[in-house]
């Protein structure tokens, strides 16, 4: 076992955070079907162990740069469920005052940036440059999907991060699908962690359905970056339980494939471990479930009751500078 171990209270926190992401998503899927949430909502269910395991390894001051599949990452980075839900409703009280929805949440207070696909990699690299330039202690976690590896930005960003030895960890959520395209058709090297070697950085593959394994790998990479040892690449092998987004159901995937992965549900896994290995009482976990549900119901009520952004303000934050 690695030097980074987790005690029971930390495991319970990982369980709480993953449960929040899952139940939040189930709630918004229902609201979407009922027309309460519109626009585009990318789904994360099944991949919670990656976002939660990685982001919980960070301190609050560290940065997360994510993709459009990001409200899960955003919640894992401790965004208030009320603010995230209100944003999905397009309300003034949302994290971006209803300007963004679920596409690229950006909140400097949370040290969180959502970007578009592989577009986050160059931005994360620049953030890491800013940290290095100002001799700060922060590290940047850049989380992206396997599809990003078929874009040039992946090469350029890893190359630059390695040349400048930047404090950044590249974390690839390999869920095997870019929308409906299987990875065979988009990346020639399916063992994605092997892309680390040509960029002269450490690369590891972890079980992305095991939150503890992800957490430990993230802590190791974080320690390297914090110590000025430069970037790393983590490939977390995972699976998206639903379609890529609410408007793209995964009807074409094999039923058997889905069933195998659902048996490896990261939340159920951790639940079994907490009950078995750690002797945690079932009532403790049920209480967490209830608390999470209550916070989500509260977020929905808050979002529903919040005002729409005043129409006359919609054109007003296009520029930071007046003339």
């Amino acid at each position, binding site marked *: 076992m690695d030097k980074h171990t987790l005690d029971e209270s930390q495991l319970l926190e990982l369980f709480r955070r993953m449960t929040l992401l899952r139940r939040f998503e189930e709630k918004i899927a229902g609201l979407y079907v009922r027309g309460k949430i519109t626009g585009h909502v990318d789904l994360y269910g099944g991949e919670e162990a990656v976002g939660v395991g990685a982001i919980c390894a960070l301190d609050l001051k560290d940065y997360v740069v994510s993709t459009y599949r990001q409200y899960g990452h955003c919640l894992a980075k401790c965004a208030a469920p009320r603010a995230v839900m209100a944003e999905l409703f397009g309300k003034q009280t949302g994290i971006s005052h209803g300007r963004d929805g679920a596409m690229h949440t950006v909140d400097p207070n949370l040290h969180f940036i959502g970007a578009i696909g592989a577009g986050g990699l160059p931005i994360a690299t*620049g953030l890491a440059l800013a940290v290095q330039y100002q001799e700060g202690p922060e590290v940047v976690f850049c989380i992206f999907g396997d599809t990003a590896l078929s874009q040039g930005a992946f090469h350029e960003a890893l190359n630059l991060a390695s040349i400048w030895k930047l404090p950044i960890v590249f974390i690839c959520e390999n869920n095997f699908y870019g929308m409906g395209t299987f990875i065979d058709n988009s990346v020639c090297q399916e063992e994605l962690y092997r892309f680390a070697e040509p960029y002269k950085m450490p690369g590891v593959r972890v079980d992305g359905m095991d939150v503890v394994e992800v957490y430990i790998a993230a802590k190791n990479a974080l320690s390297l970056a914090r110590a000025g040892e430069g970037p790393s690449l983590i490939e977390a092998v995972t699976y998206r339980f639903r379609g890529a987004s609410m408007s793209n159901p995964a009807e074409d995937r094999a039923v058997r494939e889905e069933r195998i992965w659902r048996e490896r549900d990261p939340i159920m896994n951790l639940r079994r471990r907490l009950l078995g290995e750690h002797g945690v009482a079932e009532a403790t976990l049920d209480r967490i479930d209830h608390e999470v549900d209550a916070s989500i119901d509260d977020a929905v009520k808050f979002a529903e009751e919040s005002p729409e952004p005043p129409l006359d303000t919609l054109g007003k934050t296009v520029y930071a500078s007046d003339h």
Partner: protein
Amino acid sequence: MAQITYREALNQALREELDRDERVFIMGKEVGYFGGAFKVTEGLLAIYGEKRVRDTPNSDLTIVGAGIGAAMGGLKPIVELTTIDSDLLAMDQIVNAAAKIHYVSGGKANVPLVIRAPQSQSLEAYFLHAPGLRVFVPAMPADAKGLLKTAIRLADPVIFFEHESLYGVKGEVSDDPDFAIPMGKAKVVREGKDVTIVAYSKSVYDAVSAAEMLAHSAIDAEVIDLRTLNPLDMTTVVESVKKTGRAIVAYQGWRTGGAGAEIAAQIHEAAFDSLDAPVARVASLDTPMPYGQHREIMALPSVAAIVKVAQRLI
């Protein structure tokens, strides 16, 4: 005040802002040891070191993206691209990220990034079409310096066009370190009463030459240098058109869908009743730039073309 070139004026602006603010740094291909593809950053590496004058790989997309990230991380990056053509490789970062981040963050995040783009093709209309971006197009050495300083101090992302044929042009430039030119303020470079010629970048020089030729045939042309396209100072333009009753927009972009189309439309909207003739455009031919020098001259808007159009309007 001293007579210096457009290139030297930019170099001075960079030095002054590097001195003024520790957060300012320059990165791009060739900016350090080579002194810039057009020698604009010459001498800066020796003074400010590799931390603040950073040579980068030939990765335009990622250098611009890294500029965005660095800006969001508290720095004031100046990215030099080899030419504006390289901007096209970075278009995703410029349009989908730099231009939108302030807005999609609900006004919480800023991207104080300057992208310096030596201009061979005239692609300014592409950037004018992205709300959230500032677009600067200085023609005169003094404006090149003053507007670059403004761009560096600004909280918004700026695409800063430097026309390649202007680097050697000389002009009077202030050496006061507090000197800066505000954005969104067009300059009337020649007063006249018969026709308004609106221009920017290299075309300002052509417009002034055309006005001098028109004076021989007793046509008194007013020439306006826009200096920035976003913000666009239509107040100065409309005031002039209301006086002259006629307007020509002269620019090196392609005619179809160019900045001139936008300016002409806005003149029609704001000053229709004052116009004695439709607003005319003198722009590049709608063709990729041909290689041979003679053909290149044919494809670009010329002084003679401006003169001819002005005579037709009157």
